[in-house]
């Protein structure tokens, strides 16, 4: 193989990383380099430095250390049996790309993952070396996210957490059966074990000992994971209950959903078509409802187990529980206001604040920033009452978009 240039490697190893959905760079430790002795800052709101035409924000240098891999996960373009072109960065190349991109304000930091070369420990050790070099030699204070290899030795995970802001371990698939079939070298037990390890270390790092000694730093921006959607037959209901268990058991900051992309040279076990992107979108909305709106997984996923692709899950829930509406905006408790379609968390906060001083009228909702058009059928307040709630079919038609979209074929 001819020696590849840095630019060729970058093209291959960025292309291979684009199936990872995460681009978060917020939260964690506040750092700056105002002292002049380093480069970078972190800890505020995340910043997006560009948007690609796929609508995704470009915030981190998201690359693979290498796309060589000794594993053979059926859904992955980099698996051992795939005929994809291979490349591998050196430690120094990744360090230099990160620093030079950062200095030009292209990125918030690095999101590094990797195929498994030689062994999980070897690979993890090399990723840790990159993070350590950035911190110790380059005095880099920007954001680092390392995708952790679950089979790596615990002391490597501990060291990863010392240098990185965030660690992630991908659960890959929603059910253990699917994981067994599609990723034979991986095990749910190892993955969950590694997540539990990360959680325990993160908690230990937050706990000051009774003598007040400061414990060693560990991944202050927490851990996240990613699940591939549509490579196996799991329903949305199964996916959401898997997520809610992950949030509860491992204190994850985020579960990312990635619609399965059919890949060239795929294994026979996989579907040839991709799930609609809209499915991924609805899962994110449902996930959001679980984290910020007080919904439980079982409430959102309908009996069929699949989310409605045409209307968002909050509206779907409201239509299925029409008896609870209309809601009196001036009197309903916070939990119920949060369930009104068209009311976001911030609008609800503003409603609660404003109604301490006076009775809210219909016109106020516009000023507050509610999506009144969506909320109308579900609320009552001076200046507006929905008379009789229209029947479900009509209501649904009012919100559902004209069919046929999002297909490229």
């Amino acid at each position, binding site marked *: 193989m001819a020696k590849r240039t840095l630019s060729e490697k970058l093209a291959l190893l960025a292309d291979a990383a684009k199936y990872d959905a995460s681009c978060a760079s917020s939260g964690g430790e506040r750092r700056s380099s105002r002292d002049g002795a380093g480069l970078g800052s972190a800890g505020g709101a995340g910043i997006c430095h560009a948007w690609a*035409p796929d609508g995704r924000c470009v915030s981190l240098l998201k690359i693979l250390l290498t796309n060589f891999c000794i594993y053979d996960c059926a859904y992955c373009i980099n698996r051992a049996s795939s005929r994809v072109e291979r490349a591998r960065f050196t430690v120094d190349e990744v360090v230099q790309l990160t620093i030079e991109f950062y200095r030009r304000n292209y990125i918030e930091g690095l999101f590094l993952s990797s195929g498994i070369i030689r062994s999980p420990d070897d690979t993890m050790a090399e990723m840790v070396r990159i993070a350590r070099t950035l911190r110790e030699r380059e005095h880099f204070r920007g954001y680092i996210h390392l995708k952790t290899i679950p089979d790596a030795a615990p002391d490597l995970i501990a060291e990863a957490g010392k240098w990185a802001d965030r660690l992630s371990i991908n659960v890959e698939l929603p059910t253990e059966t699917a994981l067994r079939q599609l990723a034979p070298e991986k095990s749910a037990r190892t993955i969950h074990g590694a997540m539990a390890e990360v959680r325990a270390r993160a908690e230990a790092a937050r706990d000051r000992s009774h003598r007040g000694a400061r414990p060693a730093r560990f991944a202050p921006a927490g851990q996240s994971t990613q699940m591939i959607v549509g490579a196996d037959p799991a329903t949305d209901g199964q996916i959401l209950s898997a997520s809610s268990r992950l949030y509860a058991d491992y204190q994850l900051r985020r579960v990312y959903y990635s619609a399965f992309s059919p890949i060239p040279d795929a294994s*026979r076990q996989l579907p040839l078509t991709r799930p609609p992107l809209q499915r991924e979108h609805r899962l994110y909305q449902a996930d959001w409802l679980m984290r910020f709106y007080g919904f439980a997984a079982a409430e959102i996923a309908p009996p069929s187990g699949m989310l409605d692709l045409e209307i968002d899950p909050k509206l779907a829930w409201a239509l299925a529980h029409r008896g609870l509406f209309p809601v009196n905006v001036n009197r309903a408790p916070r939990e119920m206001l949060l369930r009104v379609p068209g009311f976001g968390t911030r609008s609800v906060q503003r409603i609660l604040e404003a109604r301490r*001083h006076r009775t809210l009228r219909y016109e106020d909702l516009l000023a507050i920033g509610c999506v009144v058009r969506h909320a109308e059928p579900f609320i009552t307040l001076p200046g507006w009452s929905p008379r009789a709630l229209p029947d479900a079919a009509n209501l649904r038609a009012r919100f559902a978009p004209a069919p046929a979209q999002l297909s490229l074929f």
Partner: protein
Amino acid sequence: MQVVLPRIGTVAAWRAEVRRLAATGVPPEAVQWAVGDAADDLFNAAPIAAGRAVPLTLPRDAVLAIETALHHSDPQRFARGYAIVLRLARKDLRWGDRSDPALRRLLDQEKAVRRDIHKMHGFVRFREVTPPGANRRAFAAWFEPDHPIVEPAAPFFARRFGDMDWLIATPGLTARCETGQLEFFATQGCAAPPADATEDLWRVYFASIFNPARLMIAAMASNMPRKYWKNLPEADLIPELIRSAPARVRAAHDAMTSAPRRPPRG
């Protein structure tokens, strides 16, 4: 009477003027605000109409939001800000009451300014201009914000790029940070800095991280409006990425369905 605020340190000067005006109870409609050089205005010399002093005690949130909104380009912002300060101080207005048109306008402008600052933090692109033999690296950028926000936006860059010197020029002001000293001055000329080879790598990255199977142009354009494109080195790749996306997806799909599906190796 006319109050002329300087181009640099505008908000601090406005704050000082507001204290002075409120202390003598000058009504908002008696003040004309301007930025830049004092105009020869007859009223300028008119004596201040003395009224009752208004003690200024405002919620901290209010002060921050009002001062942020003062970085908007709306010429009425200083007058609106002063009027709102007086109404808040006299308890004629409750902070946060969005049913008040003037306050709502101010809050909308505050939001627009914060968004503009956020976009500047994301979209400034530095090019290296380190002089030969220098012991600190130096970078420069040209940026065109919607509002005069260089002063509130610059400290972010000073916190972030501590070990290098940098300069950001905009159509109004230029911010420069050398060996940690941040300063502002009026921009002279508007030449973009010379080309930088790392930009080519960045363009390669931008094109490679894009997934042609998920074209969502509206989402991109709403977050990265076209007006910013001319100063983004990656933006001129976008039309071709969009144009070729369907063909790339078709090619991948054909390769998938026609190629014999091989059993795993080994």
